[in-house]
């Protein structure tokens, strides 16, 4: 099961009670969102709307299909914009 880290820089900590690392049965970003929503109601939606996922250092934004492999480093970070 891939291990997912919630970057501490998010207001989501309130929803997880301070937990920042999870093991989740998920091979895609979409599955991850659904699993997080089940485990911590509201977190899945928040992740979907306001966070990006960095998989082995590459940042994916708004990508349901982003692949999560068991060995990958998976970190949820705030969405990035630009100017």
């Amino acid at each position, binding site marked *: 099961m891939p291990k997912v880290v919630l*970057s*501490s*820089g998010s*207001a989501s900590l309130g929803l997880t009670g301070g937990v920042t690392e999870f093991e989740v049965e998920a091979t895609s970003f979409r599955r991850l969102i659904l699993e997080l929503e089940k485990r911590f109601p509201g977190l899945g939606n928040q992740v979907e709307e306001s966070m990006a996922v960095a998989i082995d*250092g590459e940042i994916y934004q708004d*990508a349901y299909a982003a692949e999560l492999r068991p060995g990958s480093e998976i970190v949820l970070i705030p969405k*990035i*914009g630009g100017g």
Partner: protein
Amino acid sequence: MNYINSDLKVVGTRPIRPDGVEKVTGRALYSADTRVAGMLWGKILRSPHAHARIVSIDTSKAEALKGVHAVVTSKDFPAIKSEEAFVGEGPMNFRDLSDNIMARNKALYEGHAVAAVAATTPAIADEAMALIDVTYEVLPHVIDVDDAMKADAPVLHADMFTAGVNPKPATASNIAKVVTFKKGDIDAGFADAEVIFEGSYTTKPVHQGYIEPHACLATYNPDGQISIHASSQGHFMIRAYTAKLLGLDMADIRVNPAEIGGGFGGKTLIYLEPVAVALSRKSGKSVKMQMTREEVFRGSGPTSGASVSVKLGAKKDGTIVAAQQVLKFQAGAYAGSPIGPGCMCGFALYDIPNIDVLGYDVVSNRPKVAAYRAPGAPISSFAVECAVDDLARKLGMDPLTLREKNAAVNGTKTHYGPTHTNIGYTQVLEAAKAHPHWKAPVAEGHGRGLAAGFWFNIGGESSATVHINEDGTVMVATGSPDIGGSRASMGMMAAEVLGIPVAKVKAIVADTASIGFTFLTGGSRVTFATGMAVTQATEKVVDQLKARAAQTWDIPVDAVEWKDGKAFPAGTNAGAFEPLDLAAIALKQGRTGGPINAEVSVNAQGAGAGFGAHICDVKVDKETGHVEIVRYTAIQDVGKAIHPSYVEGQIQGGAAQGIGWALSEEYIYNDKGQMENPGFLDYRCPVASDLPMIEAVLVEVPNPRHPFGARGVGEVPIIPPMAAISNAIKSAVGVRMEHLPMSPPKVRAALDAAG
């Protein structure tokens, strides 16, 4: 397909851009250049108060004035419920966006729109505005971020309870959000350190300073069909936000992208379009609106001003073991400053085991901040890069060596979580070290400074269509407004894939009805994401061209290859056919199946991060405090420069904006919270005589996720200048400037204080 190691014929060259001639002859049409017969002039009445309750608005006298055809206030806009979104490249709530374009209950900044009129001439519109009676209850205001955080500060939003704090506060404040990022154990890190440096820094709000003010021409037709002609960094965003704020269907709005006179992030939001549409609906005529320069300053979103503190701990050998940063950013009137990226970017350049960053998103009575080139990062890096420089001094180390020793590399875990991959920072530092500027002796009385910067760059959604004309020439259409010459790069990438000269390819920007959804132009994303869509669409077209040739020759399609703009039989077994070029295939397009084209939409991921290092030599006039930039070199990893001239242009332009931010630009407020310098005379942007030539050095560490290896380039260059200059001033005259801008009176005061 990946062309990174290919022999390239077009990509990497410097053709003249396809839209160039119309721009040098004055023919190009920008937002304010179009008129329609019978159109009205729309103008916005703005609050003179920084913070006030709007008690009542009486528009009756204005409505009665001859020549006035419509007057609108917030009553003409639907109430939007709270909905967090990513708007204009930053977090914002749609309810706040609605309130920003037309105030409902409170004026939250000087310049906040409270009403608008449409009249037959600008003069009548001005007269009408003077006849609108607004009764304000003036409230105490607060501007500065530190002041806004105080317990007794006037509170802007009664429903703002700081997010990210556990437990949630019981009283409302101006602190919208707190974010933290941690790595390792910061206390243990500092305990382990042998040398410590601490610094506190402030920056003032600055404006993106685009020379073209916001403008638009909107027509609401009696059947509800709306057309908007406007420049922006994203005409799809204009459509989406206008639809949202007026409660309309997107299909009923068509936005035609005018040429844009600069954006830099400031034109990713909307201000005028929904108002112009509302005025057009009410009056039954087209409405043209154009901000004055004063309105641009008073009423559109600049960046945050900020307070930042940095503490660094290192071993005597220069290994940085602990880094801490606290950032407080102004968000303007509504929550949503770039505090997140600000927290992430400062230390992203370093491999440090123990990091602790704390950030505050704070509202105050100024326009809502909009994105400005790498939002958050310039402020954060100003503080970090000055602190690293002073740490180097304390350690007795060369500042470049200290950065090299602690540089982030592939495999460095950042403090915000992800591990760096495919980055080019060490290559940038090596290029800096090898550069003649770094090696040149520093002239007598001058000082040299070095600073670096990091930005993520983004990908996102882009659509592109490639069509073969019946004569074999090629059209490329995308949905990305062209701010910096991107049309040239799009055409070049298509030409490269097809193997034809770029002169045979025409790239245009299509309107919202003519191309698939495309996210805005910003975040250094167009060459990456839209380029990816263009390349993929062109590859699909090549597949079709091969299939048409196969049909013409009556051979299997896998017996056809495409090279240098022609279909060839693949090997002698396929048949001795003369190659078919685009013109020959297009001539028979009907007979072989119909028009030849492809549209591709992507949500591009894997945008390569960018790093830059700038070297700056200054001369400080000790009598006046004036800082002269004597020599400037900007080194950046660009992945692959599709059109090197425009890549250099981005670097030079970003550096110039950073220099202005460093030396002369700032919002000056009076004690009523009103901006005192809303014009280019006193809001001092760099002019030609302020700057030397800016040497842009392109380091190409390919980004494997882009077909040609391109990384975004536009934002990184604005990050290093402020610290590079402060570091250079320190070298020159021994004083550390911690407060921006480092304008002559401030430098003079610092010199006086130093004795």
